[in-house]
């Protein structure tokens, strides 16, 4: 998941569709995010490349819609409903995920095991 500046980023992604759960006037998804271009990438425990400023899933609450949809901790979110998540600030990412008029968010996430699986299949 490292990127070369100037080259398009390629990754093997998984589509995850999460239905937001209504909880006393809040729509929650059931996970936490960390990262962003305004954050310190060196402190990210899930990234392979410590200069990667993407959005990562840092916690998935048990029994929540995210866990049900198959989101796993340590996933890097590449797109949310078509919006890019690789070069956004932390706040922008939060806003894209918590839009009040959307009930469903469709994420494209990537993780290392996906790449490994594809590579092993190709060999």
């Amino acid at each position, binding site marked *: 998941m490292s990127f070369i500046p100037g080259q398009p980023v390629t990754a093997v992604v998984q589509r995850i569709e999460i239905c937001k759960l209504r909880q006393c006037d809040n729509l*929650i*998804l059931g*996970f*936490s*995010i*960390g990262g962003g271009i*305004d*954050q*310190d990438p060196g*402190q*990210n425990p899930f990234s392979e490349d410590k200069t990667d400023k993407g959005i990562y899933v*840092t*916690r998935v*609450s048990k029994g929540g819609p995210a866990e049900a949809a198959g989101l796993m901790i340590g996933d890097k979110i590449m797109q949310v409903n078509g919006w890019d998540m690789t070069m956004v600030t*932390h706040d922008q990412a*939060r806003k894209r*995920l*918590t839009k009040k008029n959307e009930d469903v968010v469709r994420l494209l996430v990537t993780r290392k095991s996906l790449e490994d699986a594809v590579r092993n299949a190709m060999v």
Partner: protein
Amino acid sequence: MDTESQYSGYSYKSSHSRSSRKHRDRRERHRSKSRDGGSSRGDKSVTIQAPGEPLLDNESTRGDDRDDNWGETTTVVTGTSEHSVSNEDLTRVSKELDESSPLECRRFVGPVLSGCLGLFALLTPLAFLLLPQALWETLHPCGTPCEGLYVSLAFKLLVLLISSWALFLRPPRATLPRFFVFRSLLMVLVFLFVASYWLFYSVRVWEPREPEYRVIVEYAASLVDALLFIQYLALVLLEVRHLQPAFCLKVVRTTDGASRFYNVGHLSIQRAAVWILEHYYSDFPVYNPALLNLPKSILSKKMSGFKVYSLGEENSTNNSTGQSRAMIAAAARRRDNSHNEYYYEEAEMERRVRKRKARLVVAVEEAFTHIKRLQDEEQNPSASSPKNPREVMDPREAAQAIFAPMARAMQKYLRTTRQQPYHSMESILTHLQFCITHNMTPKAFLERYLTPGPTLQYQRENGRGRQWTLVSEEPVTSALRQGCTFSLRRLDFALVVTVTPLPFLSLGEEFVDPKSHKFVMRLQSETSV
């Protein structure tokens, strides 16, 4: 067995000397208390207690403190000739040099010669001016132009005189083995110059009896101008050129590894040697031959395989290093754990020194409280008891009065740190007197004994000079360059010098806008969605 007999013989001798030493010790101290001026004085520096063990004296290297071999530094011993001269020869030669007195004058031949030449050069313009006036009658007197020339001539001569006195008329610090190239060059230049001026004078002015006096005055003025320029050249070559640093010299003393780095400019090898020696006397700690040897207990432990009992005195350990070294070769195959003993011996030694030092400091502090200045006493009359009028002493007597309580502690400390050859009782008393006179604290008094000072501190007043030998593979008048090495040898140690050029620095510039100092916090937030 060989080692056995040697060892037992040594212990017998040392016990013998130790008892006699104790005797001598007691006697000397007794004598010193009763007499003014202390223990016996020989031609060598005198110690408070007995000199080192007799065995040590025969093999110990003669340190700088012994007066024997100071003579003139006029022998040219450079290059390959150095190898053919052994140490004893050198000692003998320098001893002979000591007795012959004409060599004392050789120090001044160079300066006297250049002084004469300078004087001759200075008097020449005056001679040019005065000779026609004195010896001829037919001279056209010249008016105002000459007046100006007279004044300028007079002032230029005055400037030449003063600057020559300031720059060149100084007692020489050293005699160099080969000619000082720049100086001889300049002397030759001045001589040729003045000679050619005299030549032209005699041909153009004297023979045809030049009637125009103005011409003669202008001629003399041009000579003085040229002399001023030669002096400028001399100033640049002799004084200024070597000021800008160009080389870094590493100076290492061969016996104990004391080293320093110095920055010098463009110098010839012999001039650099003089420069280094001047700094050696004030920078390097004094060379103490007694500190070089490992204690005998370490070296002999693995040699003989016998148990070592140190009989009484702690300082018996630096004996018979010659014997130890002979036995080292024999015991090479034994298991070597002398490093262990060395470590413990070092720690023990350090502890001992510190203990003695503590005792010394306390004794000195106490001794200093017994003395007070008379003026201070008069200012607090309440402190003094009117019943006992104190006798007023001068510094010498005061020093002697307070020396007695600290003498023993001082003796023991000096003996532990092996400094006793450098400090005689007389010198300690003199120093104490000096410190009392200048209101120094005990700590200031002790500073001289607690750290080994630079060599200059221990030199006696001696106008004869020190003999050093410059050993070099290249001719000593060649300039310093990278990788050049030479050494300066005395009888028992040498200074090895290596030359490295200073690196060329290319300095860049970076402008920092004061407004550019801005900071942000490093964030790491986690949001639940």
